């Protein structure tokens, strides 16, 4: 199956956006003296929720475009839904889904997106002021890091 020539451009675009890397401002935004009253009021949680919503939209777009991936992508999609739910924030996606030329490219894009997302969650974890949120973000980072090899295994079969 041919790999689309725009693959790298697509990947980069989705990496910057869906992983929610562009959130350096959060580091200073949460330095106030108001104690966190749960994730809902936390700017770090809000930013991660937006990135999770973008990931969910990306999985949904690829499942729609390539229904043959549905059985394998759905469990991971649901896990991102669980991440979003645990953050307790209603979010709007921070990026629009990108397209892929074929199913294999879509899976490779998702593996890259998950790796970048895990690193972004680690940065958010370090920025978090609430210990409970830090613990949650550590678990989400671990989950997303584990999605990458699970997706890569799909390419091997």
């Amino acid at each position, binding site marked *: 199956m041919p790999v689309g020539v725009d693959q790298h451009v697509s990947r980069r675009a989705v990496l910057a956006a869906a992983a929610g890397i562009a959130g350096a401002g959060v580091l200073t935004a949460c330095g106030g003296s108001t104690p966190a009253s749960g994730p809902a009021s936390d700017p770090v949680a809000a930013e991660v929720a937006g990135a999770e919503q973008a990931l969910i939209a990306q999985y949904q777009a690829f499942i729609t475009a390539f229904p043959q991936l549905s059985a394998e992508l759905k*469990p*991971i999609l*649901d*896990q*991102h839904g*669980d*991440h979003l739910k*645990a953050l307790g924030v209603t979010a709007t996606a921070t990026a629009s889904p990108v397209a892929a030329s074929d199913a294999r490219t879509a899976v490779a894009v998702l593996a890259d997106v998950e790796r970048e997302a*895990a690193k972004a*969650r*680690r940065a958010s*974890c*370090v920025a978090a002021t609430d*210990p*409970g949120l*830090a*613990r949650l*973000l*550590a*678990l*989400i*980072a*671990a*989950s997303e*890091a*584990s*999605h*990458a*090899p*699970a997706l890569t*295994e799909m390419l091997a079969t």
Partner: protein
Amino acid sequence: MSITPIEAAISGEDACIYAYGVIGSQVRGASKARARKALVDHRAWRDRLQSQAPVIVAASIAYDFPFPVEDAESAKLLAVFVENRMVGQYADLAASAAGTAREDAVTAAMECATRAIAWGGMTQAFPQA
């Protein structure tokens, strides 16, 4: 007497190191190489944590496994179990640490969850054993 998250993480790494000795004796080929690499990596994290801990944590002489480990299949299940278990311990450590120590704890959690997949584990929203 309760132990701190860093002491718990060191004890968890000691259990991993012990487990990988057993796992390595039961698997062959690429799995043996994977077990050896995991053993070295867990030892490195253990030493790093110990260098930052206020107290010296002693390893146990032996550990009880949650199920009998007597062939390659059960050895791989044990690897998935100990890796996923460590994710929770590193998440606890991340919650109690700050700055570089917290970042390291998350990195370690990411590595453990990734190894669990390599050993045949399923992905989880919140990795746990």
